[in-house]
């Protein structure tokens, strides 16, 4: 699936933000044009791809957000919108007025929720998120980025019940970025994170919420009991690492935010989404030849060898390698 950044502007400043490096380098006026929207739609159709994710920044800040959504639906796409839920009352009314007429199987929001106690937000932000969830809860899946080991999920379960959100929780590990400091989960803390996540199993089960692990979780850090539970609850689990195909408003492309500084290309250089994916899979493979995984044992791990685990995220590998070799990507 391709991720299109409608704009690089964002209304939040999360302490773990792994897009901030890329966003900081983009002009404030960086919003995708209709010409590029149509180019990408054609590109995806030609690639046989019918799903597109819209993100940012905050994608709803794009002045034509609703029009773009309606256009992509008319082109036959299924849409996932990654949002903070923070938007003006006027924009929310506009979005809700149109989206609530669309079946949730055609468009879905993933609302990235921060714990109001652990990640305090400016006054009024929480009210706006609640307004968003009130209007669009049934179209929305909660998303949560873990950036500290003492995280809490209670507020998310509360929101799922309160706002009738979809019974799926997208759980991501905050990833390190180069050049700037951000809060993220270090390799040695992943076991604690997994144990804490598992401690919420009773609530997951009681509220019928499926845990959906995002990329970067190492398979070997799960006990058999934990693995069994994750598989029973969600029907599968992901221990891989992308490459996610992120496309900027100007059609620059890279393989996920933390790696945006590495081998950025233009979508115009490729003929299909498969070509883009092949390019970045090859890049990841080359990185992993030098840095097999986040743990020393990854080099000889059966799971990694057989492709069932990627040995953590490439972003972690590069972060760790940077401590040994300045700019380890230069040789790629």
């Amino acid at each position, binding site marked *: 699936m391709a991720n299109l950044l409608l704009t690089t502007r964002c209304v939040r400043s999360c302490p773990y933000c792994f897009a901030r490096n890329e966003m900081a380098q983009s002009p404030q006026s960086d919003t995708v044009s*209709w*010409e590029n929207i*149509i180019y990408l*739609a*054609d*590109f995806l*159709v*030609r690639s046989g791809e019918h799903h597109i994710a819209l993100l940012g920044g905050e994608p709803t800040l794009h002045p*034509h957000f*609703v*029009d773009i959504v*309606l*256009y992509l*639906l*008319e*082109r036959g796409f299924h849409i996932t919108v990654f949002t903070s839920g923070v938007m003006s009352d006027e924009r929310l009314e506009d979005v809700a007025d*149109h989206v609530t007429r669309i079946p949730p199987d055609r468009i879905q929001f993933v609302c990235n929720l921060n714990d109001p106690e652990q990640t305090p937000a400016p006054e009024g932000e929480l009210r706006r998120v609640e307004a968003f969830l009130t209007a669009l809860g049934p179209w929305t899946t909660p998303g949560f980025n873990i950036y500290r080991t003492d995280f809490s999920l209670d507020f998310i379960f509360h929101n799922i019940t309160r706002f009738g959100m979809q019974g799926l929780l997208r759980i991501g590990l905050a990833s390190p970025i180069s050049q700037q400091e951000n809060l993220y989960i270090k390799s040695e803390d992943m076991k604690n994170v997994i144990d804490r996540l598992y401690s919420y199993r009773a609530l997951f089960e009681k509220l019928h919420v499926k845990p959906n692990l995002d990329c970067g979780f190492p398979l070997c850090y799960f006990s058999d009991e934990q693995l069994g539970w994750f598989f029973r609850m969600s029907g599968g689990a992901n221990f891989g690492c992308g490459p996610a195909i992120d496309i900027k408003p100007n059609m620059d492309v890279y393989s996920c935010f933390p790696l945006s500084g590495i081998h950025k290309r233009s979508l115009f250089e490729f003929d299909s989404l498969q070509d883009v994916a092949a390019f970045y899979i090859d890049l990841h493979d080359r990185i992993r030849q030098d840095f097999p995984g986040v743990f020393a044992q990854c080099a000889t791990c059966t799971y990694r060898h057989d492709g069932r685990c990627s040995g953590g995220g490439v972003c972690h590998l590069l972060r760790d390698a940077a401590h040994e070799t300045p700019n380890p990507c230069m040789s790629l």
Partner: protein
Amino acid sequence: MKLPTLVCPYNRALLEGIDRHDIVVRVEQLPDITRAAHDIRSSGKNLIDVVIEVDQPLSDIPIQEDWHGIPIALFTPEMGRFRDIAHQVPRIRDLRMHVYLPAENPENLTACRILSSLGITCCLVFGTAEPDWTALSDLMAYAVFGPVPHAPIEPFGYIARQYSPDAYTLWGSVYYDEPGEFLHLDGDGRVALSSAALLSGSYIADHIPPASEPLDTEDYRQGITAWRHLFLADHPCRACEGWRICMGRFGAQGRHAPGCSRFAADMLTEVEQYRTENKTEPLQEDLS
């Protein structure tokens, strides 16, 4: 010899007096679209198009079910917001409607791309104001070489289809405004060679002669080769590398400029490439 198509107002008495010519009928009101089409077809004449010019955006036009099957050329100033037209897109796509938009408004170039990508044929209308030639070149490339099937964007599609290095490409046909192929009638039946001549009251005849008698006046002969005057007048278009495909259509309106010339040259390059590649799939159906 094929008779010229007549472009005439919706006037029953006038239409009844026309024999054997194909008809493009101009109507003033939206409800007249269905009435005019019915009248012309029921009299056994061949209806080429119903032309209507409105002053509201496409998004504000109440698309009617009974327009189905009627060829309609809708001249509108703009598309309007996509959100306001989104619900009408499937209905418009099912019609035989071509949406004509003024080229000088940059938003209309984008609108053409949007509509075309959704299967709605559109056409740019060049007035006296200067369009954004660079954006126009991009749109032309999309129209001719777009990577996935889309509806025609005229006049580019027509030019790509009809272009021949051995003949002039008379793309005024997409506007029913090509001297020699179309004649324009006013409500009294007087005949002009072009829509501009009709507006200025420059007639070449007081009526259409019977189909067995070709219109062969001096004014007519001069009118269909009016482009030659650009050479005699030492007009800048005479040396333009895009002449073969433009034939002064831009410059003759006092608008010859570097951007115009470059655009026409680009267009020539593109259509020659299109021809060289000998695409087998139809780019789009012919407007006529």
